[in-house]
Each structure stands twice: as structure tokens, then as C-alpha cells.
């Protein structure tokens, strides 16, 4: 692990001057953003703004060409791989819900629990009471208790979104990156998801990417608007949505 000399920032997540290009296309341009411990941040921005790519960078899937990405003020995330970053306590929900479809909901959560992930640990694993209680609690939270033995592939799109949030809870990370959690949800489900994320935010730092403005408004947190891979505006939802450039980007020139 690459640990720098002492903390350089109080932020839990610190991005500065990050650049990424794919075959000459600049997906992320001089992106700088910080998240304080315990904060919840909503990220908005038109399609292709680079929101998902930013999460790819934070979780080690994409290596930036340039720039600093620090976790907890000390750990340089650009040098670590996905496994390592997950072990540090960064969990992620994907834009396209990604669950293990051929396994049960309970097994999906079991796999997500932050227990010994070594080959030996899983080969000789014996379930413990503590683990099954944690799984029960998560099932309760995501309202899938009755479906626990169903295959994850048989869930509706919205339920898969919830299962993936449940997997995040089971993973118990310090920082949650949640990519478009309410896509494909009904209004009621969207409201419930907002409530759930606010509940989660009582203990964890959360970054949520979402298009749904009602949802973002309901979260009631600081908003960052990305455009062409860089921060266009930052502030409350009202400030950001009245920002001229943001309006321009969203409505077209």
C-alpha cells in the first residue's frame, strides 16, 4: 500500500487536477473535488459528463493520466487495484445494476459481507451467528426478507437496485459511491431510496450520481454539476439549478 507521509487534507476523498483521455477523447478534464468525512454529495450532469468515469477512477477501474486521488488524506488510490481499494472501505453501486444473478439474494449479501476474503478463509468458511444477523438486518432494510432464497436474476430492475444497495450495506464501507440508484424506480420507490440513503448517511460518507432532480432535491445536500469532465458548478440545488451555465448545458444553447 502506498501511504504518504502524514495527512495532507482533512477530506475523506480528494481529487485534484485529474485528467483521463480515451484514445484522445478527454473524458475527464482537470477535475477537482473533495468530500469531507460524513458528507453526502449529489453529482449531476448530462449524459457523457464523466460521472461514471470519475467513479471508475476512484475505485481503481480506470487509471488517470494525471492528477491526485487521495483517500482519507493519505492513500494514493491511483496506485491501487480494485480489490485493494474495496478493502480500504470504498464500496460502489453500478449504474447498470450488477448482482450475481445465478445466486440467491442471501448469497449475494453473504458474498458482499466484509469478512475474510482470502482463498483459505472462504474455503474453510463456517457461517457465524453474527454474519447471519447482519444479513437479516440488511434484508430487512432493503425489504427483501421474503425473497431471500430467490435467485437474484429473478428480481425486478428496481429490486436489483435495492439488492445492490444492500450489498453496499453488507460491505460496510466508509465511502459509498452510488451511481444512478433510482433509474427504473417508481415514485414511491424513489422516495424510499432517498430516505434509505439519508439513513445510511448518518454513519457513512456518500456520493450519489443521479439525473432525477426531484430525488436530488429530496436528498437536500450539496450538489456538484459535472460537464465535459470538469466541475461546472457547486452549491445547493437551488444555486446550481439557477446557474446560467448549468441551464445552458442542460437545455442546450
Amino acid at each position, binding site marked *: 500500500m502506498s501511504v504518504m507521509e502524514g495527512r495532507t487534507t482533512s477530506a475523506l476523498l480528494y481529487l485534484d487536477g485529474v485528467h483521463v483521455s480515451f484514445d484522445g477523447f478527454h473524458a475527464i478534464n482537470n477535475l477537482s473535488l473533495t468530500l469531507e468525512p460524513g458528507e453526502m454529495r449529489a453529482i449531476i450532469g448530462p449524459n457523457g459528463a464523466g460521472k461514471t468515469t470519475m467513479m471508475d477512477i476512484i*475505485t481503481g*477501474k480506470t487509471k488517470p493520466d494525471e492528477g491526485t486521488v487521495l483517500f482519507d488524506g493519505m492513500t494514493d488510490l491511483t496506485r491501487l*487495484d*480494485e*480489490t485493494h481499494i*474495496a*478493502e480500504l472501505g470504498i*464500496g*460502489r453501486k*453500478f449504474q447498470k445494476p*450488477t*448482482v*450475481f*444473478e*445465478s*445466486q*440467491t439474494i442471501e*448469497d449475494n449479501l*453473504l*458474498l*458482499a459481507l*466484509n469478512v475474510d*476474503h*482470502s*482463498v483459505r478463509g*472462504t*474455503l*474453510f*468458511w463456517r457461517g457465524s451467528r453474527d454474519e447471519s444477523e447482519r444479513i437479516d438486518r440488511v434484508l430487512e432494510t432493503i425489504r427483501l426478507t421474503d425473497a431471500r*432464497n*430467490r*435467485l437474484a436474476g429473478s428480481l425486478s430492475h428496481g429490486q436489483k437496485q435495492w439488492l445492490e444497495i444492500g*450489498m453496499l450495506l453488507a*460491505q460496510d464501507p466508509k465511502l459509498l459511491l452510488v451511481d444512478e440508484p433510482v433509474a427504473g424506480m417508481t415514485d414511491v420507490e424513489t422516495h424510499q431510496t432517498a430516505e434509505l440513503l439519508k439513513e445510511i448517511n448518518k454513519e457513512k460518507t456518500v456520493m450519489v450520481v443521479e439525473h432525477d432532480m426531484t430525488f436530488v432535491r429530496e436528498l437536500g445536500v450539496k450538489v456538484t454539476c459535472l460537464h465535459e469532465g470538469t466541475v461546472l458548478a457547486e452549491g445547493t440545488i437551488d444555486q446550481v439549478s439557477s446557474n446560467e451555465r448549468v441551464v445552458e448545458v442542460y437545455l442546450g444553447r
Partner: protein
Amino acid sequence: MTPHVLTRSLDRSATIFLVVVAGLGVLIPLSNLLLPAGSALQVPTYLVALFGKYACYAILALSIDLIWGYCGILSLGHGAFFALGGYAMGMYLMRQIGSRGVYGNPILPDFMVFLNYPALPWYWHGFDMFWFAALMVILVPGLLAFCFGWLAFRSRVTGVYLSIITQAMTYALLLAFFRNDFGFGGNNGLTDFKDILGFNVQADGTRAALFALSCLALIVAFLICRAVVTSKLGKVLIAIRDAESRTRFLGYRVESYKLFVFTLSACMAGVAGALYVPQVGIINPSEFAPGNSIEAVIWVAVGGRGTLVGAALGAVVVNYAKTYFTSGPLAPYWLFMLGALFILVTLLLPKGIVGTFNAWRESRKATEKANAESAALEDGVGEPKPAE
């Protein structure tokens, strides 16, 4: 409800499998040795050897199913590990010949005398001891798989690229073992074995014992595979198979898991090869032929990928067909038939024999349950409850 039923039904097929293999492993040798030759129930020795061969193929198929069916690693080079195990056993058998060879050299096998080797190559030392050879049967394929897997999985080589390099690996070994100066008998390989642990390899008793041992090895291999796939590690393997990158984001070191099953699988293939060689009486470079590895994958596809029992069954069924057809007038067309079989199975039975059977039984149970429930419901509506 479904997974509970699934586990139970799998348990049942596993039990049936174990009982059948153990039963055959005991009854066939007894019938061969105790019943008078020619009697209707006596299994002739040539069949004992043939069935022994099938058992070894079944172990190879299990080893492929473990990595392909459960972890999505399609190795098209598993025949190489089988052949390496076979060569390790062959080397032991060669050294048992001693001075009974054509040239009567007490140390050097015949082909070395013929090729004017001044002395035994260093890597042939120790193979006169059975325990050493037995260790090599597991270590050599295991070590090769470990090194190969370490390089491939760490660089995240997956899918068809991985399959291609496994083909390249077995092809490279084929070319190497063909060379006379490689020290393994070149084109002719190792043959003319005399005895194993002091027993004549041709004797009925030895053949019966080798068959029984192959069945035992098949049972042990099956139990090991089953223990692996039913553990939490097995769930991780399936997770890797279905969504590899998702598994990494949960904090699993995917390459370590792949390396573990790939190496374990290669060791099993090596044991299969080692049991195979004394029963067929020869090992030569053609065992490394890329086609052999592909054929073994077809067995698994036919029997049912990711079912273990299906893999073993597929190996036996396809090889029985091969024995049947290649001994008749259709012999020249066997490869076409195998290809056609593969295409048919892929199109019509993508889950293989056992996979399709399991799915059919699942759906029948589900309908029965649904019927029972709706019947109960109707009963409840139709008959007013008697007053309390």
C-alpha cells in the same frame, strides 16, 4: 424454496453417482477375477482396461468442469496436465523395466541406449522410486499450472485469449516431447512396461486393481470438487464466472481464486493421466495434441457444464460412442461426428444432459407445488369450514 430443493436434488444425484461408481469399482473387478472366463456375467479383462480408461477420462472431465463450469475458465490445454501426469508415471514404469529391456541396460531405458545416451539425464533421477514418481504426478502439472496461471491471471487474460494460450501451451509441449533430445523417448514415447510396484501390469489382478483404484480416484476427485463448489469459495467462483469485475469491487482477489482452482484442477488431471498410462500401456506425445484437450471440453459440454456428475457422465458417454464408432466402418468419420455432436448439444441442449435433466425436474416440481397450492386453495373455498 428453490435453492433448498436444488441442493437436495443435487445431493441425490451426487449420492447416486457415488453409489454407482463405488459399485462398479467393486463388482467389475470381482466379476473379472472370480467368475469363470466366458461366463455371461464375467467382465473380460480388455473391458476392465477400457472401463479403467473411461474412469480416468471422467476425472479429467471433472477437473475441467471445476474451472470451466464453476469459474468460467475455458482451458483448451488440460490434456497437457493429463499427459504430464502420465509421463511421470511412465518414467517410473520405464525404470521398473531394469535389465529386462531389449538392450539389457540396468539403468538406461531402451530408447536412451538406442540414442547413445551416456548416462541417465538428471531429471530421470528419483523416478525409480514410486513415492517420488507419485509426488511428481501431482507436482509437475500443479507447478506448470501455477506458473502459467500466475502469469495469465495476473495480467487478466480471460475468455478466448486464455483459451488460445492454453492451446499454445499444450502444442508447445507436444513439439517438445516429439524431440528425441528432450529425453522422453521422442515420437515413440514410453512403452513396453513390465511391472508396477512389483506386479505385472498385464496381469488380470493388476488390471482389476488399477480399475478399482481409478474408481476410487474418481470418487475422491468428485468429493474434492464438491467440497470446493459447495463451500463459500464455490460461491465466489460462481460470482467470478458471472461477473468478474463486480467480484473485484467487493474486495476479492480474483486472480488468487483462479490460480487456486486452476492449479487444483491441473493436479487432478495429472492423477488421471498417471492412472491412465499403466492401463493403456503407453504414453506418447500425441497425448499433448490440442485436439485431445478440445475433445475433453466437449465431454463436459455434452454431460452438462457446472454439474460435476454431468462432466463425468459426458466423458463416459462420448468415449463409449468413440469406442463404438471407431471400431466399425464409420471410423474415419468419428471427428465429424464429434463435431456434429458438439454443435447439436450447443444448439439443442446448452445445459448438457444432466443440466437439462435437472432443469426439467426443477420445473416439474415447481408445477406440482403450484398445483398442490391451488388445489388446497380451491378446497378451502369449496368446503365451508365447520363451525368451531
